[in-house]
C-alpha cells in the first residue's frame, strides 16, 4: 500500500517576510541610487564581486562590458581601477578585513576613464561572517567625494598661501616700520635744520634791511666829504677829511661783508690777494666772535694769489667760526691758518693754498690727503655747521678747489679749504683821473629822484659842482610832472626802491614822452639787478664813481663799463640771430603785440595759438613770490610731448641751477630781464645725424608789466652731416 504523507506547512509568513525583505532591499537600493551611493559585495574566497549600477557609474564603466567578461567584476579588476597611489592601501585594508573580520573606512582615488580625471571615493566596508564566524563576504558602499576633497585642497592651498602672504606682509610692515622710524628721524633732523635756516633767514632779512639803511647813511657821509673836499682848500682842514674818508671806506667794506653774508648775490670772483682778504676776515671774525671765542690767525708770508670772491671767503670764514665756536669745548681756541702747499703725485698734485679752520683741541688730528669725511657729530649737526658746509662746498666748487672736513666728539671740527693757485696775473685797471672826468662833465640836465633827502641834496650838489643842471624830486609822483615841464632833460638818476612807485616804473612812464631818455639807477641794495640789463650804481659811491657813471650814461665815455642804454638794437640783434624763419615770425608777432610804451604782450593772446606753432611751443607760468620764483608747465605742444615721452603739464620746473645751459636758469633770466632770449644747441654725436635744438623764450604778462608767463618755442632740426668728421 502506498501512502502519501504530506506535510503542509504554512509558508505564508516566510513568503511574506521574503517579499518584505525584497521590498526593503528594493527600497534601500532605491535610496542608495538616489543618494548616488554605489554598493558592492565581494566573495571572501574567490574575490568575485557584484556591483550596483551606481557603483559602475562611480567608476565610469559601462556595466554591460564588465558583466560580459567571464566571472564579472572581480577584486583584481576593482583594485586595478584604483589610482596606483592608493591601490596598495586598499589592497591591505581588504586583506585585513578578511583576516580580522573588522569593517573599515577609506577614502581613495580612482582614475575616471571618460575624462581620465582623478576622482575621490569614500568607501565603507563591512564583513559578513558565516555561521562559524569566518568572514564570508565583504559588503561595501562608495560615494563620490571629489568635490569635498577639492575644496579641502583649495582650502589647504589658500591657508598656506595666506600664511605666506601674512609672512610677507609682516616682513614688509617690519621693513616699512624701520623705514618710517628712519624717515621720522630724518624729518626731525630736517626740521631742526629748517628751524635753524629759518632763524638764519630772519637774521638775514634784518641784516639786509639794516645794511640798506647803513649804506644810505654812509652815502650821505661820503657825499658830504666829497662836497667838503671840493669846497675846502685849506690844507689842515683837508687833512681832517683825509682822516675821515678812509673810515667811511672801511665802514662801507664792513657793510659789504655783512650783505654778502646775508644774501646770495652773484659771486664776483677776481684775482685776489689772499693775505689782504684774510686780514679783513680776521678783523671781522674777532668782532663777531666777541669775548667768548678766542681766535688765532697764522698766515704764511708770500701767500699765493687765488681766483675767488674775497667777500664770500670772508663771509664763509666768519660763518664757520661762529658755528664752530658753539661746539667748541671751553677754553679751546679757534685757529685759522693759511699756507702754500705744493705737492706732486697723488690726487692732490699741483699748487694749492690751504686755508684751515680748526679748534685747538683738534690740532694734528687732520689727515691732509684723505678723502673728505663729512661725518658730523650730532652736536655739530645740531649747530649750523651743516648749513655752513653747504656754503663751503659751493664756495670751494666755484673757486675750483676742494673741501676737507673732519668732525668727531672730543676732537672737535676741523675744516680745510684747498684753493688752486692762480696761474695768471690780472691787468690793472687804470683809475680815471678826476680832471679828465671834470673836463667831460657838465652841460646837461639831470632829473635826480631819491626819497632820502640828505642824500639827494648832497648828490645834487655834487652834480651841480660837475656843471650839470639838476632837477630834484623826492618821488615818482613829483618827478613825472617836473619832467613833463622841463624844457631839456638828458638823464634821470633815480633810486630803485622808493615809497610809492619805484624807479623802474618812473622810467617806463618817462619814456612815453622821451623814448631815448637814459637812466642811471642807484641803490643801496646789493642784488638790485635791473630789467633790460640796466646796471646799477651801488650806494655808497665816490664822487668819481658818480661822475663816471653819469658820463657813461650820457654816452660821453667810449670804453664804458656800463653800456649805454639802447633797447631797440638789442631786439634787432636777437632777431638777426634767429636763423629759423619760423622763429623769426613768432618773434615779430610777439614784438607787434607789445604796446607803444614797450609793455609786455598779453598772455591771453598766446594761450590759444597766437603763433601757429602750438605743437612746438610750451608755456610756463611764473609762481611764487619775489624771493622764491618757480615755474610750472601749463601747456606743452604735441611735438615736444612726443619727444619727451610724457606731458609736462602741471609739473614744476625742478631745475634750480644758475649756470648757463640749465633750462631753469634760462627761464629765470627771461623772467628777470623781462625780455626775449634765444638759445641753440648743435649736437654732432658719433655716427648719428647732427641735431639742432633751438629755443626762443618770450615773456608774457597779465597786466603788461609783470612777467606772469613765458612762452617757449622749440624747434628740432636734423642736419645733414656736412663735415663727415666721424667717417
Amino acid at each position, binding site marked *: 500500500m502506498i501512502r502519501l504523507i504530506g506535510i503542509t506547512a504554512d509558508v505564508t509568513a516566510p513568503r511574506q517576510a521574503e517579499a518584505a525583505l525584497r521590498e526593503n532591499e528594493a527600497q534601500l537600493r532605491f535610496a542608495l541610487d538616489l543618494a548616488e551611493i554605489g554598493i558592492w559585495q565581494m566573495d571572501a574566497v574567490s574575490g568575485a564581486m557584484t556591483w550596483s549600477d551606481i557603483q559602475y557609474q562611480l567608476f565610469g564603466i559601462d556595466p554591460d562590458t564588465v558583466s560580459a567578461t567571464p566571472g564579472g567584476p572581480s577584486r583584481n579588476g576593482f583594485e586595478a581601477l584604483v589610482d596606483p597611489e592608493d591601490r596598495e592601501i586598499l589592497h591591505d585594508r581588504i586583506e585585513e578585513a578578511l583576516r580580522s573580520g573588522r569593517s573599515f573606512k577609506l577614502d581613495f582615488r580612482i582614475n575616471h576613464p571618460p575624462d581620465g580625471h582623478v576622482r575621490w571615493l569614500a568607501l565603507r566596508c563591512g564583513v559578513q561572517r558565516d555561521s562559524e564566524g569566518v568572514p564570508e563576504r565583504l559588503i561595501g558602499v562608495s560615494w563620490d567625494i571629489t568635490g569635498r576633497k577639492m575644496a579641502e585642497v583649495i582650502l589647504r592651498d589658500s591657508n598656506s598661501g595666506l600664511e605666506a602672504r601674512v609672512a610677507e606682509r609682516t616682513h614688509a610692515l617690519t621693513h616699512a616700520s624701520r623705514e618710517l622710524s628712519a624717515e621720522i628721524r630724518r624729518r626731525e633732523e630736517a626740521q631742526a635744520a629748517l628751524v635753524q635756516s629759518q632763524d638764519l633767514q630772519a637774521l638775514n632779512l634784518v641784516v639786509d634791511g639794516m645794511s640798506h639803511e647803513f649804506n644810505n647813511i654812509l652815502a650821505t657821509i661820503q657825499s658830504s666829504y666829497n662836497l667838503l673836499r671840493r669846497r675846502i682848500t685849506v690844507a689842515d682842514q683837508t687833512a681832517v677829511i683825509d682822516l675821515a674818508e678812509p673810515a667811511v671806506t672801511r665802514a662801507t667794506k664792513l657793510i659789504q661783508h655783512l650783505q654778502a653774508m646775508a644774501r646770495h648775490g652773484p659771486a664776483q*670772483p*677776481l*684775482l685776489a690777494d689772499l693775505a689782504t682778504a684774510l686780514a679783513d676776515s680776521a678783523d671781522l671774525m674777532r668782532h663777531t666772535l666777541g669775548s667768548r671765542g678766542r681766535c688765532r690767525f697764522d698766515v704764511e708770508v708770500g701767500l699765493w694769489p687765488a*681766483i*675767488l670772491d674775497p667777500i664770500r671767503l670772508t663771509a664763509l670764514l666768519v660763518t664757520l667760526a661762529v658755528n664752530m665756536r658753539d661746539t667748541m669745548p671751553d677754553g679751546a681756541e679757534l685757529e685759522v691758518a693759511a699756507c702754500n702747499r705744493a705737492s706732486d703725485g697723488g690726487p692732490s698734485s699741483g699748487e694749492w693754498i690751504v686755508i684751515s679752520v680748526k679748534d685747538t683741541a683738534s690740532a694734528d688730528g687732520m689727515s691732509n690727503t684723505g678723502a673728505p669725511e663729512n661725518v658730523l657729530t650730532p652736536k655739530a649737526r645740531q649747530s649750523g655747521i651743516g648749513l655752513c658746509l653747504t656754503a663751503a662746498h659751493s664756495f670751494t666748487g*666755484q673757486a*675750483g678747489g676742494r673741501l676737507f672736513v673732519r668732525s668727531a666728539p672730543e676732537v672737535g671740527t676741523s675744516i680745510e679749504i684747498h684753493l*688752486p693757485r692762480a*696761474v*695768471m696775473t*690780472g*691787468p690793472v685797471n687804470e683809475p680815471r683821473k678826476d680832471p679828465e672826468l671834470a673836463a667831460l662833465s657838465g652841460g646837461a640836465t639831470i632829473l635826480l629822484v631819491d626819497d632820502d633827502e640828505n642824500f639827494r641834496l648832497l648828490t645834487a650838489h655834487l652834480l651841480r659842482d660837475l656843471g650839470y643842471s639838476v632837477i630834484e624830486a623826492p618821488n615818482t609822483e613829483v618827478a613825472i610832472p617836473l619832467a613833463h615841464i622841463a624844457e631839456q632833460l638828458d638823464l634821470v638818476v633815480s633810486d630803485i626802491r622808493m615809497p610809492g612807485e619805484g624807479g623802474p616804473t618812473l622810467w617806463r612812464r618817462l619814456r612815453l614822452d622821451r623814448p631815448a631818455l637814459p637812466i642811471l639807477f642807484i641803490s643801496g641794495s646789493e642784488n638790485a*639787478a635791473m630789467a*633790460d*640789463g640796466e*646796471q646799477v650804481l651801488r650806494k655808497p659811491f665816490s664822487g668819481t664813481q658818480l661822475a663816471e657813471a653819469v658820463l657813461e650814461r650820457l654816452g660821453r665815455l667810449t670804453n664804458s663799463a656800463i*653800456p649805454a642804454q*639802447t633797447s631797440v*638794437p*638789442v631786439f634787432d*640783434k*636777437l632777431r638777426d*640771430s634767429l636763423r629759423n624763419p619760423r622763429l623769426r615770425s613768432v618773434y615779430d608777432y610777439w614784438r607787434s603785440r607789445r604796446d607803444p610804451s614797450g609793455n609786455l604782450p598779453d598772455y591771453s593772446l598766446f594761450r590759444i595759438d597766437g603763433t601757429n606753432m602750438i605743437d612746438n611751443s610750451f608755456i610756463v607760468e611764473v609762481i611764487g613770490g619775489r624771493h622764491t620764483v618757480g615755474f610750472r608747465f601749463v601747456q606743452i605742444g604735441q611735438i*615736444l610731448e612726443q*619727444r*619727451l*615721452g610724457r606731458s609736462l603739464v602741471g609739473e614744476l620746473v625742478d*631745475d634750480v*641751477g*644758475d*649756470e*648757463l*645751459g*640749465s*633750462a631753469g*636758469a*634760462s627761464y629765470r*633770466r*627771461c623772467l628777470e*630781464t623781462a*625780455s*626775449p*632770449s*634765444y*638759445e*641753440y*644747441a*648743435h*649736437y*654732432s*654725436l*658719433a*655716427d*648719428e645725424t647732427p641735431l639742432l*635744438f633751438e*629755443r626762443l*623764450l618770450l615773456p608774457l604778462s597779465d597786466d603788461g608789466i609783470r612777467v606772469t608767463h613765458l612762452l617757449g618755442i*622749440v624747434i628740432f632740426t636734423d642736419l645733414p652731416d656736412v*663735415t663727415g*668728421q666721424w667717417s
Partner: protein
Amino acid sequence: MNTQSQITFDMAGLANAVERLPADAVDALPFGSVRLDPQGLVTFYSAAEAKLSGYGARPALGRSFFAEMAPCMDTSMFRGRIERAMAAGKYDMEFGWIGDFSDRLRQLQVRVQPASDGGCWIFIRRD
C-alpha cells in the same frame, strides 16, 4: 700745422688744432679756451678766457648742460647718446645764448670737442 691765425672758432677740427699750439698762442686766440681732464677738472685755462670772463675760475656751465638745455633733451635716451659719443671721443657740440645776460648786447657761444687725453676742450666766444 695750423698757425694761430688760421684757427677760427667755427673750424671743424678746432680742438685738434688748438692742442698743437703752444700755450702762449692759445692765450692769444680771440676766444677763450678751457681744458677739462676726464674727471672734469680744469687743467688749462687760457689768459683770453680769464680776461674775457672777468677772472671766473671756470665757465659758469652746468656739469651736464649738454642735456639740461631743455626738459625734452633731458631724457635717458639722449643722455645715453651723449655718454656713448663722449666715451668714444666722437662729438662736436655747439651752444649759443643771446639776449638773456645782464649785458644784453653780448652773445655767447660755447663749443665742446674731445681732447686727446679723454677729457674735453671748451671754447667760449663772446661778441
